[in-house]
């Protein structure tokens, strides 16, 4: 099977049952699998809340490793809207010309460097670096900060080895404390200063709230962007004709980006906690238990997508939910889309071909389901 084939493990369960079950630290999750059910549950925030105990809507659960509520992610309407209003415009900055120009420069340098090497381990030497450097633009902080972020490696925010990772997460919290203090002393045009100056419903954000926003911005855009970038490179390595097509028909670039994001669905699912006894496609859900909205499964729903398991590089109607749906739709989507756009344009300009030399797949286990979400490591040669 080609390295860039990502099969859909949920198909049978989606068709026959509508949900899939998995355990996670004795707090089981019923995964909602169909496109319509996912959208319906995402919409119904009164019954399926995000504002549960901090960390609980994440799978694997982070309740044992953090107390800080991530904002606006773990807040429900109407408060959600007030928080979101504070940061919404900031997250649109990737559309500014100067931001794009900087991104072009950063990605150009990375590709030039990759072209000089016999082999590049893309996760650590390319995608992590790209993601960290690009994030300095979103935070509007000096480029040199990215060195610290890169040094944290890809595993800082994960909770697989609970004890160990709680320690690692502390590195991030300490870092954020330090940066907030610096911005208090010396307000500037950075994200921290912006948050320190912000008011929600006439009140300043507390330090705790600001940390909740900043941690989320770090963690929400880490693995997701790394996987989106790496998997897209793997795809173009094995499908050079698609790159050629985008080169000749630049008007399909946008379709290509949305399709790659649909196909790879870098974030598999996200949880909610039921506030009452209810049901999802005839399956009972008890109050205070978890469901998850399985974006990856919804994005392969054959009742919505023709040739759902293929990359149709110019798919014109593509109602995917890879960036979520409704209230909590991804704030970082503009940044992520801009990264992919610049990446593809740069590949077209500078790269003739890419070879995959060796790959170790990253497989998530979700109960009986095994889903490939990306790679632990992947060696490529850029020509």
């Amino acid at each position, binding site marked *: 099977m080609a390295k860039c084939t990502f099969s859909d493990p949920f198909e049978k369960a989606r068709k026959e049952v509508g949900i899939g079950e998995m355990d996670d630290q004795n707090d089981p999750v019923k995964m909602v699998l169909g496109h319509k059910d996912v959208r319906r549950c995402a919409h119904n925030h009164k019954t399926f809340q995000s504002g549960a105990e901090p960390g609980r809507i994440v799978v694997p659960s982070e309740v044992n490793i953090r107390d800080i509520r991530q904002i606006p992610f773990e807040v429900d309407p109407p408060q959600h809207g007030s928080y979101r209003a504070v940061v919404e415009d900031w997250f649109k900055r990737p559309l500014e010309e100067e931001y794009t120009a900087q991104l072009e420069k950063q990605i150009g340098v990375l590709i030039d460097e990759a072209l000089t090497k016999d082999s590049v381990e893309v996760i650590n030497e390319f995608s992590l670096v790209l993601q960290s450097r690009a994030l300095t633009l979103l935070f509007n902080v000096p480029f040199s900060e990215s060195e610290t972020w890169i040094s944290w490696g890809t595993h800082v925010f994960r909770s697989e080895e609970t004890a160990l990772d709680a320690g690692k997460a502390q590195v991030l919290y300490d870092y954020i404390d330090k940066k907030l203090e610096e911005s208090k002393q010396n307000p500037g045009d950075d994200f921290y200063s912006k948050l320190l100056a912000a008011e929600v419903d006439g009140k300043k954000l507390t330090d705790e709230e600001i940390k909740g926003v900043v941690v989320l911005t770090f963690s929400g855009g880490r693995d997701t962007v790394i996987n989106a970038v790496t998997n897209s490179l793997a795809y173009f390595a094995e499908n050079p004709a698609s790159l050629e097509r985008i080169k000749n028909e630049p008007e399909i670039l946008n379709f290509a980006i949305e399709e790659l994001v649909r196909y790879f669905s870098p974030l598999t699912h996200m949880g909610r906690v039921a506030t009452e006894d209810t049901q999802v496609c005839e399956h009972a859900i008890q109050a205070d238990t978890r469901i998850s909205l399985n974006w990856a499964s919804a994005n392969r729903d054959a009742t919505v997508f023709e040739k759902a398991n293929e990359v149709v590089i110019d798919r014109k*109607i593509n*109602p995917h939910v890879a960036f979520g749906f409704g209230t909590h739709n991804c704030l970082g989507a503009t940044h992520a889309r801009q990264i992919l756009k610049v990446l593809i344009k740069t590949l077209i300009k500078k790269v003739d071909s890419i070879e995959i030399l060796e790959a170790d797949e990253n497989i998530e286990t979700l109960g009986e389901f095994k889903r490939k979400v990306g790679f632990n490591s992947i060696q490529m040669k850029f020509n």
Partner: protein
Amino acid sequence: MAKITFVTQANETITVEGNSGNVMELAVQNKIKGIDGNCGGVCSCATCHVHVEPEHWNKTGAPSAMESDMLEFDEKVSDHSRLSCQMKVTEELDGVVLKVAN
């Protein structure tokens, strides 16, 4: 040429002209507040949601099945909701008034 009028949430009325592409693109080019077109027009993000003036519903026509599916669970959905990226700019739209949903 079609003249299309947008009424924003702040009650600003802006009339623009176009003859190609879709209504979302026209709105974005003209910086209409509340129409972001985040997904570039593939029917995924609903940041191009408008309410058609009821008496103009015959100009725009009803949404496709896929489009109305995406609108079904939108907070702001009404009987005359459309995703403006799914509306082509054509002569038939001339004179239409669209209220920006967000």
